[in-house]
């Protein structure tokens, strides 16, 4: 069940889709023109609510509902685009921005109209340097052609979009850390409430949405909520760009209806596991979700926001990392823990110290020195000490591969205790 058509990765079907003339010839900016000229901001919020669109950055929160939390009658308001795509295994926003930039920018404009904002910032991770320069050129072109600027389409709606580059910090993908960073400070999360819809950028009501979320808006406004709901599942409508990576024959982005089973993505689309190996585990949301044992039942599980929790994980940003049976899951936990230890912003003690100690314990399991018999249990205890004690989800994410790894692949961890002096980093390419 491949997607009947691309809604987000339309550039794969239409050549030169990153050129404004091509985008316009394909009906681009008709949704914005018709919306701004003929609908109220409240109409747009209601349509997006009715569409059931859920935030594609990871949380899966209903987008229209998020917008409706904006504090009434307080201006100026801001739209901030979360383009800080940094979750290991996630590279979908990058493809949208590189190859379908105008659909994103039209989506930003639709969001700004709904939010009654006249300034939008695209917070792009610093590594996307070349991509950001291209986006700026596209924005300048839109301005020159009258799609951005003052009094658009002869109405009182005005909009400027600016690109702001981050400088290498995973934490800035968390929306309040992103806002701190955009204000020129350390990217450390804020205590909530207040949420950004009440006090966001510069203390003003702010909508923060992910790139993929916003790219969904032009087709929804053009074709309607009912059409959108005909794709995907009842509670997770629409398509999703799944980033597929790891031990798989054809890694890449695949746009499929939400609710598509893992098996379809990994085997039919992704070509299965190379080298005659078998699938062992799946990380369905990059490093930030419990690791799944790749049983037949799990492979048949629909990839949507509500089905993944039922099998003990989360959809998150839908970055599917496939692990084959040659890989030691305790090494996977070491890799994800190193990542989170490096990226912890240092604000909350349980996360800052906990990720340090988890890394230390995992390295001891792997460095060939004699490991104490109780070391895996100690690791589990340290992880439990972080749980539920941090301001933002980073601390929570950091323990998920560790605790689920120990619970579901205990033998991989215990092997390092049983054979303490053998170096067991026998992993692909090592």
């Amino acid at each position, binding site marked *: 069940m491949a997607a009947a058509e691309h809604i987000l990765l339309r550039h794969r079907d239409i050549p030169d889709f990153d050129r404004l003339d091509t985008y316009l010839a394909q009906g681009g900016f008709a949704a914005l023109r018709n919306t701004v000229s003929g609908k109220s901001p409240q109409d747009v919020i209601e349509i997006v609510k009715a569409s059931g669109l859920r935030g594609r950055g990871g949380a899966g929160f209903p987008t229209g509902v998020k917008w409706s939390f904006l504090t009434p009658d307080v201006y100026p308001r801001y739209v901030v685009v979360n383009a800080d795509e940094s*979750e290991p295994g996630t590279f979908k*926003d990058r493809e949208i921005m590189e190859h379908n930039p105008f659909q994103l920018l039209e989506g930003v404009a639709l969001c700004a109209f709904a939010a009654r904002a006249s300034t939008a910032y695209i917070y792009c991770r610093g590594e996307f340097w070349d991509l950001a320069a291209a986006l700026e050129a596209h924005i300048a072109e839109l301005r020159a052609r009258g799609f951005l600027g003052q009094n658009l389409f002869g109405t009182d709606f005005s909009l400027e979009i600016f690109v702001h580059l981050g400088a290498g910090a995973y934490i800035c993908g968390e929306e309040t850390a992103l806002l701190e960073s955009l204000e*020129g400070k350390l990217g450390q999360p804020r205590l909530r409430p207040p949420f950004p819809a009440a006090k966001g950028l510069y203390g003003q009501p702010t909508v923060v949405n992910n790139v993929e979320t916003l790219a969904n808006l032009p087709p929804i406004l053009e074709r309607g909520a009912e059409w959108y709901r005909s794709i995907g599942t009842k509670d997770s409508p629409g398509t999703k760009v799944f*980033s597929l*990576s790891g031990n798989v024959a054809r890694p890449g982005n695949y746009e499929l209806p939400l609710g598509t089973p893992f098996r379809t993505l990994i085997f039919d689309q992704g070509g299965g596991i190379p080298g005659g190996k078998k699938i062992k585990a799946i990380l369905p949301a990059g490093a930030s979700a419990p690791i799944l044992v790749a049983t037949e039942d799990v492979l048949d599980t629909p990839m949507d926001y509500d089905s993944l929790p039922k099998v003990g994980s989360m959809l998150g940003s839908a970055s599917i990392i496939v692990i084959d049976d040659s890989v030691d899951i305790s090494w996977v936990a070491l890799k994800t823990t190193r*990542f989170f230890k490096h990226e912890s912003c240092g604000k909350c003690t349980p996360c800052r110290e906990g990720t340090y100690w988890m890394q230390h314990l995992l390295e001891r399991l792997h460095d060939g020195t004699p490991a104490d018999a109780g070391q895996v249990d100690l690791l589990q205890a340290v992880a439990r000490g972080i749980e539920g004690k941090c301001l933002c989800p980073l601390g929570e994410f950091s323990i998920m591969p560790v605790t689920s790894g120990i619970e579901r692949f205990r033998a991989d961890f215990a092997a390092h205790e049983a054979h303490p002096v053998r170096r067991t980093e026998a992993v692909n390419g090592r």
Partner: protein
Amino acid sequence: MTAPDVRLGALREKYAAEIDAILARYPDDQRRSAVMPLLYLAQHQYGYLSPAALQEVATILGLSSTQVGSLVGFYTLYHDRPAGKVRMQICTDLPCALRGAEAFAQSVCQNLGIRLGETTADGLITVEEVTCLAGCDRAPMFQVQDGTGIHYRESQTVESAMAWTEEVRRTYGRS
């Protein structure tokens, strides 16, 4: 808000138009938002962010050099000490590692006669390990941070990476 007293440093002189364009992106009373783009500008001008460079950025924005300096340690793309002309930053995070990135990084270092984090003897290339760059489907891959910005090189082999290091030597080596 009155504009802060701006000392006309080298940065201000050389990049006057760029600095004005950067400041124009943010509200007049929120100039601090411009600190990250200005740090990139200073890094390009000086190669790294020395205390003097931080002071220059701080002066333009009316901030203290401590407020500016704290960012340098927090964000990985800012550097407070000089290194090679180019930084070769190899992703060895989980998805890339599953596709051989750790062995790739080791081979590249071996060929260059250095260890991760070190700079080649000619002072041209510093090799560093970095976390996920959103290029997981084209591993092994690395980014190049140099005086012109940050550029990706994907779907690499040890051979293609070494050919690139030769290119770097040709570009910078004879200057």
